[in-house]
């Protein structure tokens, strides 16, 4: 477990996560202000912020997957791949639910 390469990636991902949440929060705040001020763009900006927020953990898993494959870490490759498949299935399921 004390794998220096793994933890370096984790630190980079950690920074990505924090920056991502900060950008998303900024978009949400801006959108909320526009929306309260009665500007039509507010809704779109807020939706952008929300989509970004949802994309953050997905990005993390994709990065972990790519890194695990590169390092030949089979357990981690399979686990992250499985989680991504579950996410894809969720999208398919929700799409069908909507129709």
């Amino acid at each position, binding site marked *: *477990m*004390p794998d220096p390469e*793994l*933890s370096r990636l*984790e*630190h980079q*991902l*950690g*920074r990505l*996560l*924090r920056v*991502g*949440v900060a950008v*998303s*929060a900024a978009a*949400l*705040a801006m*959108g*909320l202000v526009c*929306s309260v001020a009665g500007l039509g763009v507010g*809704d779109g900006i*807020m*939706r952008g*912020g*929300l*989509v970004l*927020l*949802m994309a*953050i*953990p*997905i990005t*993390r*898993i994709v990065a*972990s997957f790519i890194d695990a494959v590169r390092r030949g870490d089979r*357990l*981690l490759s399979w*686990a*992250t791949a*499985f*989680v991504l498949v*579950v*996410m894809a*299935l*969720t*999208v398919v*399921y*929700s*799409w069908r*639910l*909507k129709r």
Partner: protein
Amino acid sequence: MLAGVVAGGLGALLGIGGGAFLVPFLNLVVGLDFKIASAISLVTVIATSSVTSATPGRLPLVNLRLGMVLEIFTTSGGLLGLMVFSRSNDPTLKHAFAVVMAVVAVVMIRQLDRRTSVPDSHELDVGVLGGRFQDPHTKELVAYRVKRLPVAFGVSLLAGVVSMLGVGGGVLKVPVLNAWCGVPMRTAAATSALMIAATAVVGSISYYMQGRIVPTYTAAAVLGVLAGSRAGFAIGVKTKVRGLKILMAAVLATVAVIYATR
């Protein structure tokens, strides 16, 4: 927004996500539909768990391999929960939520005097999923093996299902991973936060596609929870939270009763 600040602050102080407070607040006080309230709450869970699991001080405590393996079960549980709950009507969902709140209240009371259980460090073989880390407070090297893996799988699946009601599910996973599976408390909490982000995304994507996420309320709630959890951590370092935990357990029990009788 104010609800988000309060929920986030309390959640951070008590070591649970804000969802347990945000869902009843949005539903009972603001008057949003229960399904909308739980969807909004789940989005705020992504924000808090992303931030808490990515805090530099907490990163070394995360067991990535264990987290990713258990994430298979939390996300599958999430999808299962979506399927079950999409067929459920409001009263059923509220009763399920009442049960979860009751469990959270009990867990909270039981954990009153257990905060940091750091095991002795040995030169033991930690196995595929175990880990080693340096405790940030005692500076000791801690090593652990993960025991009773099927229990960890089971509780992760259950936490995944439950989280679709708008809570993180960490309050179920963390005590079980700690007490039954031998994972140190801090590692259990940090690893759980990592899993919760992915699990909440599963629910949020689905709820977003179903149009259950109202941008204005969600934006206000996310900002509030982020501000609140920041404040909560700052206060939490200095204060003893024992009394607050008892008070909140009482609040949660009340919420459980309200939802149980609806």
